[in-house]
């Protein structure tokens, strides 16, 4: 009996990669919805992390995110993903208005020696839930995106990663002089993810 409960809390590299890449999928959807990048009607509600989450029903966006999380999962399993950044840009000028930065620290021992770690699913989900709540409430302090916007996702990988056929190298798409707000973190004991949103200063408020 006791051994069974212990067995349940074991997390492997593969399991951790699945949790983290799934998190990116939901986080991307949530950001696109809450920041109004795509119209409200193109999202449908599902239950996830004990919260109502919204997922895009737009086939194009859906397949983009699916392809993204599949690739991220692969990199996470090899321990070569350092950072994932979602940028929101003005559609008209391509200026970067918002940058959602997810930094990843991977336990290298797990990758090299394929050992496992111990942490319960419940605890990880609770940590992710806290981040998702913060994403949803971020509209209070983030400047209004009062123009049509587009988004892109950047993956920071180790240099020795072979560039997949469908990917290209990109510039970091930084914001000059940004405001930054750090959100909660979560840790699978194999991958630790720190979340931070940086955004362009609103000139109006500074007057």
């Amino acid at each position, binding site marked *: 009996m006791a051994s069974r409960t212990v067995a349940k809390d074991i997390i492997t590299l593969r399991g951790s990669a699945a949790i983290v890449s799934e998190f990116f999928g939901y986080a991307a959807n949530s950001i696109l919805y809450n920041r109004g990048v795509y119209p409200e009607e193109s999202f449908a509600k599902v239950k996830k992390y004990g919260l*109502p989450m919204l997922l895009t029903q737009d086939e194009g966006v859906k397949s983009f995110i699916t392809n993204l999380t599949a690739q991220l999962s692969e990199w996470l399993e090899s321990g070569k993903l350092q950072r994932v950044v979602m940028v929101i840009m003005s559609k008209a000028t391509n200026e970067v208005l918002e940058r959602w930065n997810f930094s990843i620290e991977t336990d290298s021992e797990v990758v090299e020696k394929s050992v496992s770690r111990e942490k319960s699913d419940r605890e990880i989900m609770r940590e992710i839930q806290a981040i998702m709540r*913060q994403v949803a409430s971020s*509209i209070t302090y983030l400047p209004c995106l009062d123009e049509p916007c587009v988004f892109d996702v950047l993956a920071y990988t180790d240099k020795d990663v072979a560039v997949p056929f*469908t*990917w290209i190298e990109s510039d970091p798409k*930084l914001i000059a002089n940004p405001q930054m*707000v*750090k959100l909660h973190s979560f840790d699978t004991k194999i991958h630790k993810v720190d979340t931070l949103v940086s955004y362009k200063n609103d000139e109006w408020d*500074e007057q």
Partner: protein
Amino acid sequence: MDAMDAGSLNSFSNLTGQSRWPLQEQMDRFIPNRSATDFDYAHCMLTGWKVKENESVCSPAREAYRKLLAEALNMNRTRILAFKNKPPEPVELFPSENLTSVHLTKSAKPRRHIPQSSERTLDAPDLIDDFYLNLLDWGSSNVLAIALGNTVYLWDASDSSTSELVTVDDENGPITSVSWAPDGRHIAVGLNNSEVQLWDSASNKQLRTLRGCHRSRVGSMAWNNHILTTGGMDGQIVNNDVRIRSHIVETYRGHQQEVCGLKWSASGQQLASGGNDNLVHIWDRSMASSNSPTRWLHRLEDHTSAVKALAWCPFQSNLLATGGGGGDRSIKFWNTHTGACLNSVDTGSQVCALLWSKNERELLSSHGFTQNQLTLWKYPSMVKMAELTGHTSRVLYMAQSPDGCTVASAAGDETLRFWNVFGVPEVAKTVQKAHHEPFSQVNRIR
């Protein structure tokens, strides 16, 4: 500037809450996290300039920069990748002419002059001084409806003409709510005797009477296409399909006391209701069922007094502003998707009505004792932009003109006042059509 920095630092510590910064992180008091800073880029820029000084004769600066950037990236052993195929661009929500106006205002951002006094004042004798009623509405065809005692008057803003729509009998009246249908032609009139009348304003004919929805007066109404939602003193909310004989299609039960505020979101998906029981409910249209009473999506219990003022944000679809009565005095903002309270501001006075500007990120609130003022707030900073005084009793009702520029307010002092409080969109200014403007004779300054 200093104050602002302090503010943002505070919000930092709130967000991180219990967790202190890990010591190994690179940080200081002013830049709490540098992970969004690109040191490679900074390094490259620094070294780049040096090289440029040394070998200023050689290849163009851009070439050198590119080489150094590549070097810097090699050193750092990080590769930044993105998909070749970009995600689909969102379909444009606004017509492109609006878009250009956004850019124009953005580049210039002139300070707008907000007139401190009302443009016009009309007498509104016998206007009932009752917080729980909704006696003023401005329809899409630019006609303002106001209920004074047992009579509904229509005031056509395009030619300032007044006409009487209906006077009800003493035993049925007084009128407790008026609401224009989205077509600007049909109007619903809620009565003290629990009935609702539907009128065609073009022919001045009554079309039908909705009975049996409520057991007492109907103080609030809201349209969602052909659905007329009514809120009663009995605490019930009823969806009436005005096209069919048995018009009651849904009932929402959740309020214990009079429902005094009702507003559908712009998408028609969510209904916000406020009651004398201090509650705000969010109802989801897709959760409704005809055979059993629908459960609310969210019950928001933070207000400590009756909630009449409700306003859906026109630029953020799941954002709702609510205002509390005399014992509460706060304006609260909600994410209606999660039910989270996003912000709360103490206004110091009863909040009777709330309106969002259609053209700017601004919110207008109307108040009671002590100033009986209208307050214009910048959103989301909630900095006060203007306080408009003139009314001598609480400002119970507000309505916005179809072009979004003018606000009408009716107060317990039995006057109806018009304010040019919201800015004019850049496009509207240039293609202003006289017959659409309620006050074309008044110079509008922006």
